[in-house]
Each structure stands twice: as structure tokens, then as C-alpha cells.
């Protein structure tokens, strides 16, 4: 009974690591435009997706995140010209590698949202939350504290 209750009331925790210049502004626009999206996402702002160390993603998964979303400018629109193009290579290999060791691919998501795409940001968050909800709580590589 208690288990069922816990299951029903379980809401995924999603870490969104977003770039300052596009997705963060996109999230801002979604807020200003009063677009509704699930409150499961915790946003971390970084200067550029190229600044994201792959450790952040693995560490977030270990620290209890059910899903990690990384979002930056569309390719070719990076504030630092090529930051997201370099990041794209890192994420392509990281996603494949995490899937290979046995972590579900849907827990690590990568996407591009530009500053004018408030609508798309809300859609992405809805999509990611639905996918992570379908997977259920993270159990692998999860550090138990205490």
C-alpha cells in the first residue's frame, strides 16, 4: 500500500544543464510568456554547452537525478562560435557509452533550444519529463546517502 502510494506520488527529478545565451533565455521567455511546463526540472546555468564537463552528467545521475537534460544553442548559433559543435561530439560519445554500460539512454538527453523558442523549451521539458516518468525512478549508479 505504502509502496503504491509512493509510486503514485513519485515525481522525477530532472537536472537541466543549459547554456546562458540560448536555452536559459529560452526558458526565461517560456516564463515570461506564461507557458506551463512540468515543475520537475532544476535548471543549472553554464556559459556554454562546451563548458559542460561530462562528469557533471554522470555525477548528477550518481547524486540522485532521474534524468539529465543538456541544452544549448542550435549548431551554428553558438555565442562562442563553435562551443556547441565541440560539445556535440562529447555528448554523442557519452550518450553511446552510458547506454553501452547499461544506463538507459532516455535518462541523458541532449537538445538545442534557442532564445526565441520559449514554446519549444516547454515542449522539451514536457517530453523529457514524460520519458523519464515512463522509465521510473533511477536505481542504477545511485549513491545512497546516510
Amino acid at each position, binding site marked *: 500500500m505504502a509502496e503504491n502510494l509512493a509510486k503514485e506520488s513519485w515525481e522525477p527529478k530532472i537536472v537541466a544543464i543549459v547554456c546562458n545565451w540560448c536555452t536559459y533565455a529560452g526558458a526565461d521567455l517560456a516564463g515570461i510568456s506564461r507557458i506551463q511546463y512540468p515543475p520537475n526540472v532544476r535548471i543549472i546555468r553554464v556559459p556554454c554547452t562546451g563548458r559542460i564537463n*561530462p562528469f557533471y552528467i554522470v555525477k548528477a545521475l*550518481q547524486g540522485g537525478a532521474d534524468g539529465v537534460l543538456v541544452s544549448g544553442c542550435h549548431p551554428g548559433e553558438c555565442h562562442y562560435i563553435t562551443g556547441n*559543435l*565541440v560539445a556535440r561530439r*562529447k555528448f*554523442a*560519445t557519452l550518450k553511446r*557509452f552510458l547506454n553501452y554500460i547499461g*544506463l538507459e539512454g532516455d535518462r541523458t538527453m541532449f537538445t*538545442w533550444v534557442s532564445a526565441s523558442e520559449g514554446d519549444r523549451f516547454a515542449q522539451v521539458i514536457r517530453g523529457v519529463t514524460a520519458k523519464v516518468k515512463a522509465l521510473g525512478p533511477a536505481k542504477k549508479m545511485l549513491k545512497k546517502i546516510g
Partner: protein
Amino acid sequence: MENIDTKLREVAKRLLLEKKVDVIIGYEKGTLPMTATPCFVSTEAEADKLVFNDLCTQNLAKFVHDLITNHKNSQKRVKPEDRKKKIIGVVARGCTTRSLIIHLQERQYGRDEVYIIGVPCEGYVDRKNLAKSLQQAEILDGTIEGGQLKIKTAAGDKTVAFKDVIAPNCVVCRFNNPIISDIMIGSPAPAMNPDNEYSKINEFEKKSIEERWAYFTKEMEKCIRCNACRQACPSCYCPTCFVEQSQPQWVGIGEDKTDTQVFQCMRLYHMVGRCVDCGSCISVCPMGVDLRNYLKKIDKDCVELFGSRAGSSMEDMPPLGKYSEQDKEDFIFNP
């Protein structure tokens, strides 16, 4: 494999005599029977202990990097005009030259600081394989002749074929002859058979996600985090490894198994476009963790996604250090 020891010693002596190199890193006979161990040769008299055979396992590029870094650090206290340059000679087979290329591409030292003595390689004996085929009997003495290992063990004499105990990474080696060298000793070795190098990976990829996770956790439970793999790896040369960083602390120091998983996961991921499949980490692992399954996967991804093989040429820069506008985007999430 032809015996190139005499020629190697001659070359080493000449290089030391002509002061072309200050020290030569090579292999000598190990203290245990049927082993070879890395050694440093800085005088002509010492050059007589150099050997190169099928028992030489470790990738010597690691020592090149260590020596040059230590020397450069020691020179920091010297006035700029009095600074001395040291030239390191290294006995290098295919995988060692690949590691040296990675160092050079990552601007760890200049090409003129290292003198590469290229040697052909036909693969080396995997100690764990050998121990298995001898039923863990203690090796007392042995010789290698014509593809046969004649071994005297505590449980009697045995003959083992070299091709049965060759390391798995050597069987599928693509670059068994030096890619770059200043001097080449011996004639080039015949090519190995790299056609099926990813067959095991393809098989593993077909397994279900739960099976893959079960295998990963099973392998990582063996790991005692002795960091031997990191110490032996020529691509692991950070002055402070993420394992030892405390601000932020990436990896907890307790015995929590997720910390071990995170450590291995991140160390393996650091090898994207940098692992040359030399097998050093596997040969030094005291617990026999199957690291190669994961390293080879990373190698496969690099070939598939970026068409790059680690250290295969001086021009082909590391894949994560560059980009292409045509990179695949199939992993991007679109709601």
C-alpha cells in the same frame, strides 16, 4: 620473431656515445622468469641489458611523459639561460608510437625531445592467459623459440604455442609496426588480423540493457581502485587526476560501489579518441577487470562517428579537440 637484441644494443650504445640521447627507455629481463620489465639506460655499459621480445608488455610512452615532465619541473628552478634540454630515447613498438603521437598532438613535449627507436612487434604474451594455460603452476624458467614457449614449471615441463597465449589486443592490432620513428631496427613485422576487432563489442551491444548493466556492475565490483590502470596508461597524465581532486570531489573515497563505477566510467570516458589498445591497463590490473570491453567500444564509436583512430597519424588530430559541421545529430532529442 627475429632476435633484434644485439642490433638494439648496438644502436643504443651508438646513440649514447654520440650524445644523441641522454637516456634510453627500453626493456630488460625481469626479475621473475619469463618476464621483461621497463628499464632506463643512461650509460653504454648498461645498454647490454636491453632486450626486446614477446614478453615486453608495458607501453613505454608513459615513462617518456613522466621523465620529460619531471625534467621540465626540475628545470623551473634553473635560470632560463642555464636550462638543459634532455632527449629521451625510447624503444617503441606500434602502440607505443601511437601513444607518443597522442602526446605530441596534445603538445606535451616537442618532437625533438624524444628519439624513437622503432621495433617491429608480433604481439606479446598475456600473463593471465599464460597462467591459465599452465593451470596457475609457478613458472621456473623458459624460452621462446619459433612460436613455441618452452616453459619449466613447478608442475613439470610444458610447451605452449605463442598464438594461444598472445594478448587479445595484439591479435587484432592494426598498427604493429611503428608509425613514426627516427631509426628502425629489424624488418617490419607481418600484419595482424584486425578484421574482427569489434566482433565482441557488436555481440555485447545486442544484449539487453539489464544484461549489460549486470555485466558492468559485476566487473566493477572486482575493482579495488588501486589506480594501477591509471598509472600504467600513457594517456592518463593529468598532473592531478580527477580521482584525487577534492574541490570538487568527483569520486567519493569510501567503499561505496557507485563511486567505483563512477571512477571507472569517467576514466574510460577520458579515453575517447585516446586509447591505443596497448593493453597496459589490463596487464597491470590485479583483479582482472574486463576494461577492454569498454575501451574498445569507445574506439569503435570514434571510428564510426568521427572516422578517427587514436594516434594513427600525426595529422589526424584528436577527435574531441575538433568538430565538423556534418557530425551526426541522431541522438538529439526533438519533442
